[in-house]
């Protein structure tokens, strides 16, 4: 059985155009959400408001570069932002799911870009080719993280909503899971050697994969940009001695007994 060469149905130049449209759609969607809806302006106003509370005793004199590096590693690359609930049974699974989704998305997106722009005619085995292996690893991480996140959704866990109750905030998660499932189905039919099945699944795969990227203005995905920026601003402000929070108590009221 010989795998189908997808370039027969989708030439490399078309695939490049497709990937470019996805990237452009994502960027424009985030820009529209941030600027068009006034979120950026509201955020700047909020930051100025918090800084107007003045300084506290917490100034660290750390350089901005070291603060940014620390936030990048701890808060973003290791999803440290998720671990603030201080309850291990909530923090750990949420963080694990978030890490799988975050790194799975990065690995998958990079692999897709490499396939589109560096190896456009690649038709290698998914078991031996490093690029195919990394694509599948990223996709598997996305799928696992997505399924885990279904149980960790805060409205399901805290508000006891049904697992199957969908709200708009689920749009991104479900569309990503669906896109990954279609990716695996496409790979399966491709390996099976059936020309007709590959063509049909490819026709379905293209819009399903495009949906999460082109719907960013209406989904909760832009938080991948907003949250790191907020985390950096928060830590930079703290290092500069600005905090809207009260100074920590100088005395402890706990009596040893």
């Amino acid at each position, binding site marked *: 059985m010989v795998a189908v060469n997808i370039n027969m149905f989708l030439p490399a130049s078309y695939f490049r155009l497709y990937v470019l449209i996805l990237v452009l759609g994502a960027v424009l969607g985030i820009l529209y959400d941030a600027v068009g809806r006034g979120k950026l302006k509201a955020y700047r106003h909020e930051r100025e408001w918090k800084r107007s509370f003045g300084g506290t005793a917490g100034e660290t004199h750390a350089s901005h570069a070291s603060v940014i590096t620390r936030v990048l590693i701890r808060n973003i690359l290791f999803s440290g932002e998720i671990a603030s*609930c201080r309850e291990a049974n909530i923090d750990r699974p949420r963080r694990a799911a978030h890490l799988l989704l975050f790194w799975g998305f990065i690995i998958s997106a990079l692999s897709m870009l490499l396939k589109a722009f560096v190896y456009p005619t690649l038709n290698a085995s998914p078991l031996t080719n490093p690029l195919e292996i990394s694509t599948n690893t990223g996709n598997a991480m996305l799928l696992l993280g997505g399924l885990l996140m279904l149980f960790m959704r805060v409205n399901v866990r805290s508000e006891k909503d049904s697992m199957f109750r969908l709200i708009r905030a689920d749009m991104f998660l479900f569309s990503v899971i669906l896109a990954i499932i279609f990716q695996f189905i496409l790979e399966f039919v491709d390996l099976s050697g059936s020309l007709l099945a590959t063509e049909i699944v490819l026709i379905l795969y293209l819009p399903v994969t495009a949906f999460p990227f082109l719907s960013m203005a209406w989904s909760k995905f832009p938080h991948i940009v907003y949250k790191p920026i907020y985390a950096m601003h928060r830590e930079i402000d703290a290092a500069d001695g600005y905090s*809207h929070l009260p100074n920590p108590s100088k005395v402890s009221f706990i009596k040893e007994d």
Partner: protein
Amino acid sequence: MPTFVYMTMCDGCGKCVELCPSDIMHIDPVNRRAYNVEPDMCWECYTCVKYCPEHAIDVRGYADFAPLGHGVTVLREPEKGAVSWKIKYRDGRIKEFTFPIRTTKWGSIKSPRDYPAPREDLIHTQLLSHEPEYLKVEKLPTLPLLSKEASRVKN
């Protein structure tokens, strides 16, 4: 005055949703962050404000201590048994207050489930469950029992 959530700071951990005694902290269906769905019905217990690990929930202070145009923020320090408040008045002045919230270590108070179940016949006494020993007193003043009630209580 009711509480409100800074969406930028909220992490969506859902603790305020679980804690709110009025059940008015809910999850926003678009961004999956917490928000106060019914500010008019807020009990102003400030449980969510004090608990929020991200300090994402703030409060509009009472008009008698913080007139319009102010800001109020809260810092909870369970390891010190303290809650601190910072108020920025509209003329720029800032005041801070710290209050004790408890004197025993966090987590040291036993749950009612950890105590042995009281005997059924003690429901006829004037004392509450495990009184007076768990109040650490020898005896509590009570009215004299009628002979009928006294016969129900074995001790």
